[in-house]
């Protein structure tokens, strides 16, 4: 069991690093898929079968696919020109996040308590379903409305013709001015 968790953990971390480090967005998506998969397995370890399945279907299935579509659509090159110095240059960002991570670690692990005894049906679809449609009925309905709004939003955003590129409004910038606009021809 511990070995299995070790493997899952490594895969998840590798995926995580892959998402942020890969140069081409497609690689990032794949890395994301890896993270999702490993977490799904981890959920099983934690007796959360329904969530694990759900994770696979929705996250891995739908969201990642969407990402792939968008990446395909945009052919965005991953080459980014570091024009504006970020508030936190990568060199500085990592140590800060490391500190943050340590603190988070301390806080979370500190809060851990002895696992409570739990029945065999814990985490199964029946029990989660029973809870979902009894105590969480209202949030469930709310969730359906949120989804509906999401769909309408996506349709509206998709259909609307984008305004003409806003260059006209911008004051004429001399050549070589810091922010030159990179044209990406849409093949």
């Amino acid at each position, binding site marked *: 069991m511990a070995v299995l968790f070790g493997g899952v953990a490594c895969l*998840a971390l590798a995926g995580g690093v892959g998402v942020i480090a890969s140069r081409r967005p497609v690689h990032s998506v794949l890395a994301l898929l890896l993270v999702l998969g490993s977490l799904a397995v981890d959920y099983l370890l934690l007796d959360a079968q329904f969530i694990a399945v759900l994770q696979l279907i929705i996250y891995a299935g739908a969201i990642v696919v969407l*990402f792939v579509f*968008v990446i395909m659509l945009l052919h965005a090159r991953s080459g980014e020109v*570091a024009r504006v110095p970020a508030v936190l240059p990568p060199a500085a960002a990592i140590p800060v996040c*490391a500190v943050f991570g340590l603190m988070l670690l301390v806080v979370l692990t500190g809060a851990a308590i002895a696992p*409570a005894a*739990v029945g065999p049906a814990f985490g199964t679809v029946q029990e989660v379903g029973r809870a979902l449609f009894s105590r969480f009925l209202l949030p469930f309905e709310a969730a359906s409305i949120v989804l509906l*709004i999401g769909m309408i939003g996506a349709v509206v955003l998709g259909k609307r013709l984008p305004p003409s590129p806003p260059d006209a409004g911008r004051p004429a910038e001399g050549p070589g001015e810091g*922010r030159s*606009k990179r044209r990406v021809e849409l093949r």
Partner: protein
Amino acid sequence: MTVPAPYHLALSAVLFTLGMVGVLVRRSALVVFMSIEVMLNAVNLAFVTFARLRGVVDGQLLVFFVLVVAAVEVVIGLAIIVDVFRAMETVDVDDVDLLRG
């Protein structure tokens, strides 16, 4: 529940931190988006772990709703990114600074 909980929580913390680094460092909106997804998953992991620790299924239900929200978020987010791309032909987060103060 053989694997002690702190390990899961440690994994969740590290994953969350990785996601945050991604958000802070990367310029491409898509990558930022994915990093956010990673952070969300880290949170889900923590929820599930505590659900298991407390033996209460509500934790998992929370994850369910997080999933729903994440889905909607991705849909809308990507739609916006597509829109921005068509308008400004760039996905670079730094170019999108019209709302400068």
